């Protein structure tokens, strides 16, 4: 089959690889009908994960049709139309039992490696390096889905792919990001980054009761999307002198109640601290560039709440713990417990409350993936979200 394979930093290729096979009784094989490139794929593309290996199949946002099931998979049948959560979960460990499916104890075959890095291992992930299990991803014609009886989420035939594809990752991620900052009626929510997750977070923040949402970025078309589709007030950080002062002015001198870092470890920006981070990250003295996180902590109202959907992988420097401590901030973060949110969000789509298709800017066959990775990385051609059709 054809698959998008990682071959090194900024080097992805469409290659012929062996078809996936059923290995365990609860597996299913999916013929992929739609698959997307995620912002977090760019972290791999840019070479920030040392456990990627040449030939690894990328992709963790995909859906399709079941073409084979293991003998123990009683819930699924050949022909079912399913969306696959990017976190792999067994459904029976103590973490899955609490709906913390991105923390599944059993789904990462390389758990000992991850436990060395993080103390304990999170769940396995599709197409996201060997640290997270080394599973082949979904930017391919077919994929093997382990624990498919728990993960594969059946969707009705009548809804088009594009309306449900993002249930696999960014829609639940956007929702959990908003939920994680415990929005109360009247709250002002600031969102750093206007990528696909942020666009959906803005919508979910309003849905959960936010009075105002302020979005911060420097890419004009993304800010425009946040304004027109999301109804957010926007700050272009290239056009204001000081984001902190601007936010303070916009919030009656108190700061936003909730701050959401939807950027993560590869923050851009021209401030002094970001240049310092960029230099250290380039020589691998620091794994992550936490410029946005620092700014969000500084900007947050006293007693406020921070939510981090943006991916962090390793270590950061100059973490303003004093500001966080003395303002009594609350932090919530983590990979999304996708399984937990899928039924609720499908409902929202079916009721017409949210239609996530507005973020899609590019549709292309699998063969175009390498060019689109580059375009997405450089934000050329107004690229915000790429959907591939294998």
């Amino acid at each position, binding site marked *: *089959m*054809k*698959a998008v*394979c990682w*071959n090194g930093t900024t080097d992805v*290729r469409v*290659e*012929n*690889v*062996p*078809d*996936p*096979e*059923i*290995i*365990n*009784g*609860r*597996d299913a*094989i999916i*013929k992929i009908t739609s698959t997307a490139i995620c912002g977090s794929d760019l972290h791999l593309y840019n070479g920030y994960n040392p*456990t990627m290996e*040449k*030939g*690894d*199949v990328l992709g963790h946002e995909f859906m399709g049709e079941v*073409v*084979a*099931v*293991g*003998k*123990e998979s009683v819930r699924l049948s*050949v022909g079912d139309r399913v969306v696959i959560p990017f976190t792999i979960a*067994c*459904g*029976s*460990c*103590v973490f899955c*039992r609490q709906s913390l499916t991105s923390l599944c*104890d*059993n*789904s*990462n*075959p*390389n*758990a*000992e*490696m991850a*436990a060395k890095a993080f103390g304990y291992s999170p769940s*396995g992930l599709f197409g996201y390096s*060997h640290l997270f*299990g*080394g*599973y*082949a991803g979904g930017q391919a014609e077919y994929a*093997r889905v*382990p*624990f498919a009886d728990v993960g594969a989420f059946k969707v009705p035939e009548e809804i088009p792919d594009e309306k449900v594809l993002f249930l696999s990752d960014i829609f639940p991620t956007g929702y959990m990001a908003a939920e994680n900052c415990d929005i109360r009626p009247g709250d002002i929510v600031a969102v750093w980054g206007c990528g696909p997750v942020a666009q959906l977070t803005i919508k979910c923040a309003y849905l959960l009761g936010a009075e105002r949402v302020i979005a911060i970025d420097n890419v004009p078309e993304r800010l425009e999307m946040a304004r027109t589709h999301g109804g957010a007030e926007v700050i272009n950080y290239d056009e204001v002198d000081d984001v902190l002062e601007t936010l303070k002015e916009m919030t009656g001198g108190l700061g936003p109640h909730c701050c959401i870092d939807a950027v993560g470890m590869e923050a851009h920006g021209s401030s002094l601290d970001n240049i310092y981070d960029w230099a250290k990250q380039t020589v691998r003295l620091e794994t992550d560039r936490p410029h946005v996180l620092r700014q969000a902590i500084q900007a947050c109202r006293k007693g406020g709440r921070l939510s981090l959907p943006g991916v962090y992988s390793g270590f950061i420097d100059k973490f303003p713990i004093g500001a966080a401590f003395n303002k009594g901030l609350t932090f919530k973060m983590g990979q999304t417990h996708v399984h937990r949110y899928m039924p609720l969000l499908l409902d929202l789509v079916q009721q017409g409350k949210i239609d996530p298709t507005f973020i899609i800017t590019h549709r292309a066959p699998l063969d175009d993936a390498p060019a689109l990775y580059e375009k997405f990385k450089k934000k050329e051609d107004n690229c915000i979200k790429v959907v591939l059709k294998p």
Partner: protein
Amino acid sequence: MKTIQEHEPQRAKPDTARMNVGTAERVGSAIGGGALVAYGLSRRSVGGALLALLGGAALYRGVTGSCPAYTSLGITTAADDRPLEEQLKERGISIEKTITINRPPEELYASWRSLPALPGVMGGLAPDGRTGGEGSRRLAEETAGSRAQWESMITEEKQNELIGWRSLPDADVESVGSVRFIPCNGGMGTEVKVALSYSPPAGRAGDAVAKLFGKDPSRRLGEDLRRFQQKMETGDIVSAGQRVSGNTGSDAGNEDARRFAWGSRDSVEEASWESFPASDPPAW
């Protein structure tokens, strides 16, 4: 036989208090030392006094069986008749790991007891010869062409609580170990505690054992226990499947029915209970 609880790591007794001089050497040391003391004292000179002191030291080690010089050099000529677990504590490798499994102790105990092979943990207990809860089982662990005979016997069992084992005297790998099952998590889950000490042999058998455990025996044990947890909680050993690398597949044909005709074939070929623990440590 000591009870398993006593296998728990404990601070080693001070070495100076231990006998490290063999019996024949002690007799010789005592007689020679006594003679030197008598002769030295009879000389009534400085040299004689020094000889007497030297003789006193020899007499001391002969009588007590403990030689400070041997201790500082790590030498012993005494036969070590302490229990194997104590010996291995000192000269072997001891590891301990605990995991929590979301199943009741009875289930875990029964499954552990019926495991065909747990080479990383118990040196492998073959299912044959299991009568009355005790017996010796033999596993030939084959690793890269060399074999280590690793015979173990169950030394202690408490239903649903613990299993203790040790290697038989002629085993290539001397080992003792235990696994305990402790209910937790409101009765839903179980802490599984494994304590293991082993002494790697020299030569080809040693190579096999080294390969089996890898550079990091603690990590190997951790991986084995994770697989046990996976099997117990999910029914399967998880696997990322075949190593996919580019341009090795054929692109001939696209007909799903033909491609996936094996959809209902027997599962679990690469990772099976029989091959448990199946995979090698990740290459990274």
